[in-house]
C-alpha cells in the first residue's frame, strides 16, 4: 500500500512545462530516490506533494487522501533552500519549529535535547543560529526534519556540508527510519549515496519520467554483461568466451562474446588455473546510467 501516490500530475509556469504527466508511488519502509538533472522538476514535484503548489492536472494522494493540516504534522521536510531563524538561540529555534509540527513544548524540548546530543550540537544550544557553522546548521535543519517522528520524510540534498562522520550518521538514521517503516524521499545528485541507500528510484528529466523502478532492476537493464575480475597474479592473454580484456587499476574488465554466460567464464578461468580475489558481474554505476539517459534525452529533444 503506497503512502504517497502521484498520478499523472502536470504543472506549467508560464512558458515552462515544469512537470509533465508524472506518475509514481512511494511505499512505507523504503528510501525512494528522486533524481534528475538541475531544472528537471524535482523541487516542483516535491512542492506539489507538500501542497505548496497545486498541480494543473492529475492527482496526489498523501497518507491515504489529499493533503490537509493534520497531515502536515506527519511529514518532515528538508527543503533545498535551507532556512532557520538566524537571530535566535538554536534551542529556541528548534523548539518553535517543532511546536509548529504539533508537538507540545515539553515533549519537543526532551526529544530535541536527545537529537542535539546525538548530533553534537547540545553544547551550542544557547548560541544564536547564525553563529553556527554551515555543517552545524545543516545538522540542526535535519533535526527539525526528523524530531516529530514523521511518517514521511522528504529530504533534498541531505549530505551537503556534512563531513564523512556526520554523513555516515545521517545515513544510519535514514536507514533506521526506513526500518521503522517510514517512507523517505531523497533528492540528491550524489549518486554514490543513492546506490548505497535507495531501494527504488525515479529519474525525471524535463518534468517527465525517464527511469522508474528498483535500483537493481535499473542497473541490470543497463548492464553490459561485462565481468570484473581481480586475479591474485596476472590473467592469461586469452580466455574462452572473452572478446576483450581491459586492464583497469589492478582489476580487469572482461567483455564477453555474444550469448556467452558469465558462469562459463568463471569455469574457464578456474580451468586455466587463475586464482581469483574478486569475480563480479559489472553493474554500471548509477552515475553512468544517469549521464547516459540524460544525454539521450537531450539528443531526443534536439532531434
Amino acid at each position, binding site marked *: 500500500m503506497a503512502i504517497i501516490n502521484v498520478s499523472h500530475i502536470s504543472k506549467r509556469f508560464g512558458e515552462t512545462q515544469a512537470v509533465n504527466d508524472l506518475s509514481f508511488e512511494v511505499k512505507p519502509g523504503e528510501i525512494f530516490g528522486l533524481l534528475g538533472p538541475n531544472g528537471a522538476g524535482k523541487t516542483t514535484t516535491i512542492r506539489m506533494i507538500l501542497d505548496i503548489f497545486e498541480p494543473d492536472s492529475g492527482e496526489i494522494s498523501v497518507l491515504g487522501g489529499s493533503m490537509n493540516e493534520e497531515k502536515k504534522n506527519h511529514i518532515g521536510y528538508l527543503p533545498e533552500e535551507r*532556512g532557520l531563524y538566524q537571530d535566535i538561540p538554536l534551542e529556541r529555534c528548534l523548539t518553535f519549529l517543532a*511546536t*509548529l509540527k504539533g508537538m507540545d513544548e515539553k515533549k519537543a524540548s526532551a526529544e530535541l535535547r536527545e537529537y542535539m546530543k546525538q548530533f553534537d550540537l547540545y553544547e551550542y544550544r544557547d548560541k544564536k543560529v547564525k553563529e553556527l557553522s554551515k555543517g552545524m546548521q545543516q545538522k540542526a535543519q535535519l533535526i527539525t526534519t526528523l524530531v516529530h517522528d514523521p511518517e514521511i520524510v522528504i529530504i533534498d540534498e541531505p549530505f551537503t556540508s556534512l563531513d564523512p562522520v556526520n554523513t555516515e550518521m545521517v545515513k544510519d538514521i535514514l536507514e533506521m527510519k526506513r526500518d521503522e517503516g517510514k517512507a523517505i524521499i531523497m533528492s540528491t545528485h550524489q549518486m554514490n549515496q543513492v546506490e548505497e541507500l535507495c531501494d527504488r528510484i525515479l529519474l525525471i528529466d524535463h518534468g517527465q519520467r525517464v527511469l522508474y523502478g528498483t535500483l537493481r532492476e535499473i542497473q541490470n537493464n543497463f548492464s553490459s554483461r561485462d565481468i570484473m575480475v581481480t586475479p591474485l597474479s596476472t590473467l592469461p592473454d586469452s580466455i574462452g568466451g572473452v572478446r576483450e580484456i581491459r586492464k583497469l587499476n589492478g582489476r580487469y574488465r572482461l567483455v564477453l562474446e555474444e550469448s556467452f554466460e558469465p558462469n562459463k567464464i568463471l569455469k574457464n578461468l578456474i580451468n586455466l588455473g587463475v586464482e581469483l580475489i574478486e569475480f563480479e558481474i559489472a553493474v554500471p554505476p548509477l552515475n553512468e546510467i544517469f549521464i547516459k539517459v540524460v544525454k539521450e534525452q537531450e539528443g531526443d529533444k534536439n532531434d
Partner: protein
Amino acid sequence: MTKIWHIIKYEYTHHVFRKRFLFSLLSLPLVVVAMILVALLIGAFSVDTSPVGYIDHAGIIQEPISAEDGGGFFNPVIPFQAYQEEEQAIKDLEDKVIQAYFVIPEAYPRSIEIELIYFEEPSYEVQNQFTDLVRQNLLASEDFDPDVKQRLEEGNLITMTSLDGSHEMREDQWYTIFTPFIAGITFMIVVMTSGGYLLQAVVEEKENRTMEIMITSVTPNQLMTGKIIGNIAVGLTQLVIWLIFGWIGLKIGGQFWPILQDFSMPTNYFFLLLVVMLPSFVMVSAIMAAIGSTMTDVREAQQVSGLFSLPMMIPYYISSTIMMNPNGALAVILSYFPLTSPITILMRLAFTIVPAWELAINIMILIAFAIFAIWFAGRAFRLGMLRYGKKLSIKEIFGKRIEK
C-alpha cells in the same frame, strides 16, 4: 489554534525581548520629557530676575507686595523696587542695578497708562507681574467684598460650546482639545510601529528562507494571523507602557502644574477613535505584509514602506493648517484618501464637528481600502513567498492568473 498561538508567542517574544524594542519604547517618553525640560529651561533662563524699578506718582502702590508664592526656578519672581526720583532710577538703570522702570503718572486713574523705560526690552513676564501688582493694590484700596475681589482678580472665563454640545472649550482649559489630538497621534504611531514590526517579521521569513518550512507546517492563513496578532500585541504593549508613562508623568507633573490634573478624553471621541483605528490597523498591516512578501531584504522593504508611511504622516506635518481650518478643502480632501484619512479624521474630530454623512463615507472608504489591501496582500504573499532574491512586480500581483 495552538499553532497560531505558538506563532503569536514567537513573534511577541522575538520583538519584545530585543534591545531595539526597549530603545523604541523609551525613546518617545524620553524625547517628550527632554522637550518639556528644554522648554521650561528656556522659559526660566529667558526671564531676567534682576530688579525692576517703579515711580508711583499716582500713589497707587501702598503695599509693595509681590506674588504670594515665593516663586521657584520655573516661576521666577521679579523684585520691584520703589523710587521717589526719576534721576535715581535712570542712574540705576544706567548702572544696570535695575533692568527697567515703570512710571505710573498722576493721571493714571483716568488714563490707565503706565510708562516703561528700558534700554533693552524686558521679558513679557516683567509687565505681567507688574500689572498684577498694580491690580492687587487697586483692589486693596477699594472696599470690595472678598468674593468680588477674587472674581476681579481672576478676570473673565469664557466657555465655548458647539451647537450640538459635543465640543466644549474653556478659556483656561485650552489644552483639553489637545488630549484627543495627542491620543490620535499616539495611536497612529502604535499602528505604524506594529506595521513596521510585521513588515520585518515577513521579510525575515524570506531572509532566513524559513518560508518553505513554515508553510509545510502551518497554513498561510495561520501564519499571517499569528504574525499580525503577535505584532499588534507588540504595538499594544508599547501603547500600554506609554500610557503608564503618561499617567505617571501627569501625576508627577500635576504636583507642579495643577492644570495637568484636568486631562481627560471625551467618550464619543474615544469610540470614533476605535472606529477609525481598526480599519487603519488592518490596512497598515496588510500593506506591510504585502511589501514584506514582495521584497527580498529588510532594508529594501523599509525603504518601500516609507512610500506608504510618508503619506500617512502628511496630515501630521501640516497639522497647523488642519487645526486652523478643520473643515477646509485640504482637510476634507485628505479625509477621503485612505492613506491620509486616519490622522486627518482624528485631527478634525478633535477640533471641529465633521458632518456625520461625511464621516461615514470617509470610514467606509477606509474599510473598503483595508479589505482591498488584505486581498492584495494575500496575492502578493502567495506569489512572493517562495521567491528568494527576486522582487515581485505590481503587474504580476494584478495579473490574471495566480500560480499556486
